[in-house]
Structures are given as C-alpha cells and as structure tokens.
C-alpha cells in the first residue's frame, strides 16, 4: 500500500496505524505499572491539629463503608477501582482479539472500545477530588489535606490507559472479516 498525502490537509494517509498494537501494549503496561503504587501508597494525607491520617484508595473506601457512607464508597470504588481495572481488562481483550481470530462479534468489540474511550476520562474524578480538596482545605495548623504519592501514580495510570485506548485502531477489529470473506490482504 502506497502512502499518500491528503490533498486537503497534507496529512499522511494510512490505511492502518503503524504499530498500533505495540503502542497499545506499551501504554497499557505503563498504566498498569503506575496503578500498583497508586493502590499501595496513600492517596490523601489528612493532617489535623493532633493527628495525621493517610488513606489509600481501598482503605478509604473501606473506611467510608465502615462509617456507613455506602453511596460515596460505591462511587469511589467504581471510579477508582472498577473502571480502571475494567479498562485494563477491556483493552487487553481488544488487543488480544485483533491478534488472533476472535469468536466475539466485531460489533460487540467495537462497542467495548467506544465505551472504554468514553468512560476512561472519568477515572480522573479521583484525581480531581484530591486536587480540589488539597487546594481548598489548607487551614495551616488546624487541618490540611495534601495529595499522597498515590494520586500522582493514579493520575499517570489513568493517562496511560487513555493513551492506550487511543492507540488502539478500531479498524483492526474488522480486519478479520475480510480474512474470512473478501480476502482483502491485511496491510
């Protein structure tokens, strides 16, 4: 396949993104690496007059649940744990499915990709909460909230997974159909 430029904008026209899968996996791995410290280290450090408390993501969820705030606990759990983990799983599934012949329907896989791309940004809600709290609650000696090391790792993890989802070329989902039917050569 020759490469041509777009007559309008001059951008290079490619039929498939080059090394798409490689980039998907690379971002995915980086995101996963960052996700580990994001869960180990404390997300928030709450320092009051006499006490310093730091909570990890899961610890915070458990604490909220223990105090009876099940709704908030659920939101945080979904935003910080379920969505990122789901994203990792979804991206890995999509990347695997294009590398080999998948039995799953391409339409379903395309839908998964769209959902991943759409919902991935919402994972940043945790980071935003931390950022807002840190900037608002700065009462000097009385109380202060500071982002923990996990917040940075979590933010990186979210960013990397978003990049991973973007690097994925959804057209590859449909390439298998040509193999089965029209026999269009792949690249």
């Amino acid at each position, binding site marked *: 396949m020759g490469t041509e430029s777009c007559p309008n904008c001059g951008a290079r026209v490619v039929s498939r993104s080059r*090394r798409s899968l*490689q980039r998907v996996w*690379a971002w995915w791995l*980086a995101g996963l690496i960052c996700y*580990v410290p994001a869960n180990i280290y404390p997300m928030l450090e709450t320092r009051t*007059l*006499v*006490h310093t408390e730091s909570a990890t993501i899961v610890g915070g969820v458990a604490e909220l649940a223990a105090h009876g705030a099940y709704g908030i606990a659920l939101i945080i759990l979904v935003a910080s744990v379920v969505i990122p983990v789901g994203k990792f799983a979804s991206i890995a599934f999509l990347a695997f499915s294009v590398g080999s012949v998948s039995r799953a329907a391409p339409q379903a896989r395309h839908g998964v990709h769209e959902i991943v791309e759409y919902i991935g940004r919402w994972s940043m809600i945790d980071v935003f909460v931390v950022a807002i709290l840190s900037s608002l609650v700065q009462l000097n000696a009385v109380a202060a909230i500071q982002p923990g090391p996990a917040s940075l790792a979590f933010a990186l993890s979210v960013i990397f997974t978003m990049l991973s989802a973007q690097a994925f070329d959804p057209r590859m989902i449909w390439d298998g159909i040509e193999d089965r039917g029209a026999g269009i050569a792949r690249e």
Partner: protein
Amino acid sequence: MRVSDQPPEIPVRSVRASIFERASVVWLVPMAALLVALGVAWQSYSDRGPVIEIAFDSAAGMSPGETVLRYRDVDVGLVEDVAFTDNLDRVLASVRLEKSIASFVDDSAEFWIVRPEVTARGVTGLDTVLSGVYIEGTWDSTPGGLASRHVALAEPPLAAAGQLGLRIVLNASPGAALSEGAPILYKGIEVGRIGKPGLSEDGVNARASAIIFEPYDRIVTSATRFWDTSGFTFSLGAGGAELDFTSLASLIGGGVAFETIVSGGRPAVDGAEFGLFADEGRARASLFDTTEGTELNLIVIFRENFSGLAVGAPVELEGVRIGEVSSIRGIVDEDRFGDDGVRLLTTLALVPSRLSLDLAEFDDPLDYFEQRVDAGLRARLATATILTGGLKVEMIEVPEAPIELIDLSGDPYPILPSTLSEISDVSATAEGVFQRINDLPIEELLVSAIGFLDAAESFVGGNDTQAVPAEVRGLIGDVRGLVTAPELQALPAEVAALVAELKGVADDMRVVTTALSEADMVARLQGAIDAAAAAATGVETSVEGVPELVTSLTELSDRAGAIPLDIMVEQASGALASAQALIASDDTQALPGALTTALAEVEAALQELREGGAVRNLNQTLASAETAAAAIETAVVGLPSLTGRIEALVAQAEDALSGVDQNSELSREARAALRDISNAAEAFESLSRALERRPNSVILGR
C-alpha cells in the same frame, strides 16, 4: 554464447526489520515507569532502618503504624508491630528505626512511654492526650552498635536526654515523705528531682533515687543534709499566728531542700546515700549527732521470742548505747534452724562513730565486731526496765561461748551470733524475791505484835502509869511555886531599897559638898598648913581605901552574879529529860515506882532549894551588899566633915595668905597647898557626883 536481454533475476530476500525499526517508541514509557518503580523500591528498601524490639509492661495507648519513637522530640522510629513475649508476660513492640541513628541505639539506650501526666507541679505530655502516647528514647552520643532487644523503663528516667547530674539516694527518716518527681530546692531554686520512691532492701526505710543537675551537683558534699519541705507549719505564739510553707507546689506535691551546713565535706559521688529529715531543725541537729552518717547494720537472730522488744529499743555494747533496733521480724525456717519455732530476726542500726574506734586499726567497723565476736561477744535480750517489761539488746562477752563467727554472708546484713537472754534471770530473781516474802513468818510476827500491843495497853492502862502525869503536874507546880516564892519575889524590892539607900547617900554627899562650898572658914596659917598636910595625907589614905572597898564589893557582886540559877534550872530540866528518858526506856515495866521516887527526889531537891540554899545565900549576899553600902554611907558621912575641915583649912590658909606678902616664898607654897586642897575638894565633888549619877557603880566598881 548468446547474451540474454533479460536482466538477471535479482535475488529478493526478505529481510526482517531490526527490532529498533519495528518497535514503537512508546515502549520507552513503560520501560521508564518500570525503572522508576524499581528505583523507588530499591531506594525505600535500602533506606529502611533496622527493627528493634522493646519490651514493655503494657502497651497502653500504643498502636502499630502510629506510635512513634522520639529522640529529643524528633521522630526517629515507628512502631510496626505490637506482640507478646513467649510467655505473655510482656508486650514486645517492634520499632523500625531510622537508619541514621540506628548505630547509636546500643545497650545504653533507654526507652519509656510518655503519657499525659497532671500533677501539682504541672502538666506534662499534654500533646499525647490527643495524639496518643509515644515512646521516648535516650542514648548516649557514641555509636556502640545496634542492640536489637531492649527492656523499657517503667517510669521516665530522672534526667532527660543529655542532662548530666549527680545521682544520689535519699533515705527517708520517719516523718519525712518522698514523693515522685518532687523538686529538690536549693535556696529556692530547683536543682534536682526525686525519682520513684521504693523500699530499701530490708523493707525498713523508704528510699528514692534523686538527681542533682549540673552545675549544682558541686554543692553537695558529705556534710550536706536534706530535709522535707512538703506540707506547712503552723505556729501560734506570742508573735501571732504563723503559717509557713515553701511553695504551693511543694505544699501539695512535696519537695526536698538541702543545705551544706558546714564546709569541709568530701564531694559526693554518684550513688551516695543521704538521709532525708523531717524538717530543717532536725537536719541541722543531725550534723552534730553523728559526724558520719553511715550506719552499720547487723542482724541478730534470737532463739527466744519475747514480747517487749520494740523498734527503737536501745542497743548497748557493755553499757554504752551504740544504736537502736531498726526492725523486728519473726521468721520460721525449718531448714535453717532445724525446727519450726519462731525466731526473732532483729535488725540493729549501729552508729560506729559512737564507739570512737581507732580508724587506723579498724578500717571497717565490722572488723571490730568480727574481732570481738571471736573473743566471745554475743548479743542477747535484756530487760531495759522492770516496770514496763521493755527489752533492749545487749552485747556482752560470754566467757565460755561456743565458737561462732559473724555470718558475713547474711542477707541483707551480717548476722551477729546471739546467746541466751537475760530475761529468765530477771524473772528468776523476781520469783526468788516473792519466795522469800512468802517464807517470812508474818503470822508469828502478827501474834507477837498482838501480844506486845496487849502488854502495852495493859501497861498504859495501869494505875502507876496513870499516876505519872499527875506527878509530873505536881513537879511543874513545885517549879512554879519556887518561882513565885516570896523570897524570889522580894529580890527586886531589896535591890530597889538598896538603890534608894544609895540615892540617900548621894543626897547626903551633895549636902556635904554644898556645906563644904558654903562654909566660911578662917584658921591659922601655920597650923592650917600642918593640918592641911596631915589632912591631905589622911584624905589620901582614905581615898586609897575606897578602891579596896570597891574591889570587895565587886567580888561580892560577882559572887552574887555567879549564883547558878540557870544551872539549877538546867539541872532541873536535865532531871526532867532524864525522867522523860526514863519513861521512854526499855525498863518501863518497872518504871512507875522508881519514877515516883525520882520525882519525889526532884521535888525534895527543889523543896530544899526553895527552903534554904541559894535563895537564902542570895539574901545574905544582898544583906552584905546593904551592909557594904551602909559602910560606904558611913564613909561618905565622914566626908562632909572632912571637907569641912579642908575648907576650914583653906579658909585659914587664905586668911593667912592675905596677911603675908604676895611675893614671898611662903605665900607661893601656901598657894600651891591651897590649890592641892582645892583639887582634892573637886575630886570629892566629882566622886559624889558620880555616885549620885550611877549609884550602882559603887557595887559594880565602875
């Protein structure tokens, strides 16, 4: 060979692109992330300090991951785990130390839990109220290698980290209170602190360690005395009421003050022991009680267990008080003594300085006791006072004592051997006394006494005895009769008569002298001169006789004065005394008759005295005195005529002289003769005047 126009087939070889061409650049991102993660992991691992285990009695307030270890208020560690020791008797806290200080946490390290504490002296550890407890650690500043196991102190140490000072031990005397953390004041400045009080080894005294901080530790010497300043003193006296306390904090929480009372003490060393006195007065007085505060403690185990021995009972060495009993306990130790009897374990607190030992010979006072015990010195119980039954401990040399030595291995003090107590002797003596009292023939004595009293009663009731008072009364009556006898009564009257007569004599003499002075006498000169000479001679002799008379009168009156009236009275009273002695004598049974006789004799003697004897003699004496006075009167009666004659002579001489020449020899001589005569007349006049003034001088010679 035909040249083909077909280009030769170019061999096409599919070349596998290199990994760098095929791989995406994006792979660098996860690689970097991985590297960073590994780096961080390595960093945190290598920065991690070692874990030490600290054993606590309880983990009050400690929580893993939160409780920190602090050194000088800086966090240097974190409690990672709290667990039990194997037998559950202690709590083990695993503390992750910071790497930088780990090597300093050696065996010298001390740990304790800081808790909030509210005392009268203030609030400490307030921050731990909200933040929870923390572990404070202190260690010296020389790295000595990490020691991984430590035992925490139950209480915070006296001195904070890095605070140096003199560590001493205070022994509280009765009445002084030790309270933990109380300040030690010197002239009102807090210079030290008292640690947690405890009991001494023998359980007798309360004692506490204390610290005097630098640089005040130099003040403390062996002559320093400590006293308790807690509480207050209230005194009410002439100066009004007075309430005195050192400070509000020491009023509530106690406090100790000290003063180095005399100079010249040795500087105190770490671990030195001091007594804590109840007040300043006693502290000061103690300096002069015992020059050396150290006491020697000995234990004596008595086989007998007498009541009456009390704490504070004196301990005497050959009669010299050298200490007192400081504690008494009963012990039963079958293994040690062979039976299950109760022994009396007595702790003696001796003051060796009272022995005035020669320190060159006995370096340690205990050596002295060792030597004495070798020679047979034993302790025993003895009665201090029989009245209360109180006992004392006596050290005496027992001559044939079985060989025993001071048990230097005694715990906690050396044990001095004892011997049988002397209590039994005392009781035996008392028993003997009672036995002898019992053996006294009291009943026989009473029978004799009753018989004696009967006899006495019959004697007193006897007629003769009854008659004695009557006799005595008669005797007194006689004595009174003697005194009131007319002869004695008449004595003053006779004396008065004598005096009156003497006065009459004097009157006569006055008449004579008057006559002498008034008479007008003229006579012949020559005869007059002869007569004058003869007369002068006569007068001289006559006057010479007067002193003799006076002398004899004096003798007379002396004799009269020597009449032994008082002797008589003395004899009478002597006789009465004899009579009385007679009555009191043992032979009183035979008395009445003899007494009566004696009284009769006395009476007779007095009667005799009354009838004749002395009074008559006195009368005679007075009569003689009267006669003498009469003689004097007669003599004096002769005087006027004599004077008359002298006057006549003078007159004659004057007449004669008036006839002769004034300047002649005769005239001069005659004048001299006349002057002599005139002098003689004057002498007579003065004599008569003297007699008139003091008639008794004739009798008394004065």
